[in-house]
């Protein structure tokens, strides 16, 4: 019963069009995922450089035009390279990055089970 309720809520959330506030949230979410090229330690969201301010405006425009998050990332990636995205995508450059921690977790678990728990006298 409960799960149906969740489903309805989720569907409802996605079906309603983006209100203004939600668009602002989305814009913030996107800018938080972009790295600023001027102050290179900060995100576009955090930065107040000219470049960051322009990117914020650009994203607002693109969202108004009806583009989605992915399209905007793709657009900026084309202009500035993968470096601008804080969330590295899953491809041949980053298999190791994403999978290594999880692999280590599994290996760690296996070691614990083998060395300490199964080996009971």
């Amino acid at each position: 019963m409960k799960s149906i309720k969740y489903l309805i809520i989720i569907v409802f959330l996605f079906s309603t069009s983006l209100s203004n506030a939600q668009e602002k949230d989305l814009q913030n979410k996107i800018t938080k995922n972009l790295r600023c090229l001027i102050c290179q330690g900060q995100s576009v969201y955090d930065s107040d450089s000219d470049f960051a301010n322009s990117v914020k405006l650009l994203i607002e425009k693109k969202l108004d035009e009806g583009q989605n998050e992915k399209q905007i990332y793709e657009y900026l990636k084309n202009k500035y390279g993968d470096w601008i995205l804080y969330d590295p995508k899953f491809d041949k450059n980053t298999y190791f990055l994403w999978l290594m921690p999880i692999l280590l977790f599994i290996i760690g678990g296996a070691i614990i089970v083998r060395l300490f728990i199964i080996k009971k006298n």
Partner: protein
Amino acid sequence: MKSKIFQIFLTIFFIMIFFIFYKGLKNPNIYVPKNSLEKDIPSFKAKIFDNNTLVTSEEIFKRDKFYLMNIWASWCLPCREEHPFLMELHSNKNLEIIGLNYKDKKKNAYKFLKELNNPYEIIILDKDGTLAIEWGAYGVPESFLIQNQKIIKKIIGPLNKDLFTEIKRLIK
């Protein structure tokens, strides 16, 4: 035996990490986007500085000429520095210089051009900086050398003597 292999493996592993860090030290840590050479120029619509009419990129950049697209602003100090080079390039017949006035006030921009002369064939306006992003620029000044609607050279920062001679060579 098993532990020996493990020891050797671990030692090699750390030696590898050492060399990667060692090589990494030599790389610059400031990111500069790769020069996306041979890339098509973006297509856009923009307002012209003098009369606010709309113009498209196709109308500006024709096939048969070299263009130097220069992003500038009156408040930008390095732009003053590179201005003499632009003036000199302006006298070259093979090349048209297009200005992109970045986040500027019209009054100041006029004053800037009056004081230092105008090397630009056309100046397009970029009030909020979004047009510069179309070009993949992130600061002022930046310049793009264009041939056949393709970017053949991208210059981040002000022009200098070396870059100036290189541009001259390229447009021969």
